[in-house]
């Protein structure tokens, strides 16, 4: 039996009828065709499905759509105009932080959250903060360098300072 839920998805209000068992990931991917969020395990371990719920990172694969009624959901597609996300994307490109690209959206969302909370990080702290996102291609070195480069750039940006002060 379907249940009506209303979600703000990437800034747009959506009301839909969902089965209780339907994950937020499947709702986004199959119904909304927002396919940047990938499924790698459906156990909450690999991190490929990481999105933002009310501004906080969460695993879309183990979040039921019905359980986030009224929440604000942001996927990678909805962060195109975000300054920190743009810095991260550029850094991932510059420092070769991706190979096959499958883990990349989850890496970007998790690192976005990490840098928002802890703008000044060394590489060890980055590795610890990103331990919840698995990659099979890169061996993580390029990812860590990318996030470090982004952190350095973000630390110098006026918006970061504003956020820290606000």
């Amino acid at each position, binding site marked *: 039996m379907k249940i009506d839920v209303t979600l703000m998805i990437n800034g747009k209000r959506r009301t839909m009828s969902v089965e209780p068992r339907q994950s937020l990931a499947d709702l986004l991917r199959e119904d909304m065709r927002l*396919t940047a969020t*990938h499924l790698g*395990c459906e*156990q909450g*371990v690999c991190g490929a499905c990481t999105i933002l719920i009310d501004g906080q990172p969460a695993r879309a694969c183990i979040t039921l759509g019905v359980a986030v009624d009224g929440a604000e959901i942001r996927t990678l597609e909805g962060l195109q105009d975000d300054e920190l996300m743009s810095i991260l994307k550029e850094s991932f*490109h510059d420092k070769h932080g*991706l190979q096959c690209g499958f883990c990349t959206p989850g890496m*970007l969302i998790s690192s976005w959250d990490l840098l928002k909370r802890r703008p000044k990080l060394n590489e060890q702290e980055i590795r610890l903060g990103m331990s919840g996102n698995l990659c099979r291609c890169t061996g*993580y*070195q390029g990812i860590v360098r990318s996030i470090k480069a982004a952190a350095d750039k973000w630390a110098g940006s006026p918006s970061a300072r504003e956020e820290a002060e606000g």
Partner: protein
Amino acid sequence: MNGESLKRKSQGVGASVLRNEDRRYLEGKGEYLADLQVPGMAEIAFLRSPVAHGRIRSIEVPEQYRDQVFFASDIAFAKPIVAVSAAKGFRASDYPPLTSDKARFVGDLLAICIAPTRAEAEDIAAACIVDFDELPAVWDIDVALKPDSPRVHDAWPNNIYIETRIQTGDLDGARKAAAVTVHKRLRMGRHAGVSMECRGVLAHYDRRMDELVVYSSTQFPHVIRTIMAQCLGISEARLRVIAPDVGGGFGPKNNFQPEELAVAALSMKLNRPLRWVEDRREHLIASPHAREHRYDLKAYADSKGRILGLEAEVVVDAGAYSVWPWTASMEAGMSAGIMTGPYDIPVYHARAVTVATNKSPLGPYRGVGRSGACFAIETLIDAVARAVDREPIDVRIENMVPPEAMPYTSATHKLYDSGDYPQCARRAKDAIDLPAIRARQQKPEPDGRLIGVGMASYTEQSAHGTAEWVARGLPIVFGYEPALARFTPDGKLILFVGIQNHGQGLETTLAQIAHQELGIPVADVIVRHGDSSVSPYGMGTFASRSMTMSGGAVSAACAILAKKIARIGAHLLQAPQDMVALADGRVNFGDQSVSFAAIAEAAFLHPERLPVDEEPALEANAVYQPGRSTGAFSYATHACTVAVDPGTGHVEILDYVVCHDCGTMVNPMIVEAQVVGGVAQGLGTALYEEIPYDENGQPLASTFLDYTIPGSTEVPDVRVLHMETPSPHTRFGIKGMGEGGAIAPPAAVINAINDALRPLGVEIDQTPATAERILDKLIAAQGGRA
């Protein structure tokens, strides 16, 4: 080409150009199999066997689902997958898309359930009741080899796919002359490939083209088309196979899967679009597995550790069916065939046995048999060094094929083309700072941990072509690669290639080759691959072949275009042909130039502007085979320092160094990252990854809660040192290197652990070297002292 000096161009061979393909992935716009939808599509959930071995008596389907469940009889027209080898005595196995007589491993395909959503399809599968006559499970090599063991394949006299032997030189002589004999027994745990994207297939009928379209997350779409057409009984002209964006391959996506055949056959039969997206549990249980090897080795050496002869037995647990096209025998055969490694070992006798068990079929996985062979010979070398009380690196180097002996034919008849193995090993030793570690080991660590250093060297056959594949006796010989280089009228270059990029950066590196030949900006080059209807017939991406093979073809095709562009450009500039230069997407003569766009426009749309006798259009195709098809041998030495915690058994990698030589590097940034990625997988093999099976043939690791791959806190920074000894036989001297990183880590890490534990008399002879196994050995060595 041999001796040609490479003129470095800013975006050409040797440049660390940033990747063309990044944009769509960073925007989240990549299209992987699970992102594709076709109108009217139904989702598939497979009914898979929950038992390892059993005769299928019946499968009961609830009435309301009768027309949503399909069995072997429903797709009887689809012929089974049969991998064959020309090797004498090889036993082929019929691998049907759905099994109907017996289930032969947990996960074996019994039926296809279809529904509007995957969840509903799983409901249907869960509602089916399978009645088995359960048979004892052949769950282990030892069980399989017992004379009275049940047969995985009933018609076989035993559970052996094949046994092969290599006999080079006088082993008796070596035995007698040896001052030292070292015997080692080793095991490698069974693996899954664990690409982040699992497998998947989407099939539908295109009525306008009258062809079946099959999307598959595969590494070799053309070859899949060939075998799939055979099995479906249709012409290849009526079948299109497309690999969309593929989220990692590593080998498990380099087989013709029964799931591919089942989905395609049923889609044909029902005339309905069907999609199967593998989930992680299916992947861990039923995707082609990897690495389960056992070794029994004897080295006969002189008093300095120089190896006079090597005796090896490798036994591989190859699971229930032969994977296509490689056959179950590939692992053992490859391992035995590269066991002498980078060493000059003239006497070598080996026995390679491939065993059938009730487990998921074993297939190629990054490094393939070489990882096991390296683990074997490199731990053996360390053991020989200990036996003669010498530093392992010294014994290693003294046994190596010296550079002056190149080209060198090994005891397994492999032709090592070029390289300086000793220099590479020395550089690795310097980089890990061996003397400093030996000094450090003299004093106890403040935190009580035990420090160890280990090294491992290998040589890797890459980009092997016709001669090698013929020797392996496979039904398809992966002898060449094609390329079609085609300009658009507005001056962009499209390269249609037969490899299949899935993370290796080929959409960039092949563009770099084009730049090298044409001077066209990399951003103006588009690489089209992965689609059997779009690209010329190619073999796909595996065996570290793509850069060498496809790069060679792209180079040849672009060289033809370069001449034509020079002719047309010279004509348009009214300049002598031998005085123009191609650079920056333009033909230049002094301070005059004409763009490739103008030339392309002339070629396609205004042939009146072309020189007399110049044909219109602007495209060229070529095929490429390396000068020698016996392979270009990349090689490396890995070195690592570890700290072993005797309180927890935990191993921390303190430092990891790779010195490698893959000939001429097209893009050093990408090469380094391929090495590091490979090392991460190798560390997984060494310390974390394993799918054990119980006595009922049940896999004991089926989710990420049980099966661990290294994360960002487990993989250290890896220092990569490059050497570039060009291959004499390939374009630009390129060698393949995609797998190398994953070959040496199990040996390097185990050697380091054994070095650390040597004072306690403990040796690890198995991967993964889990904390529990290390603790068990430590406790046993202490006699269980409290």
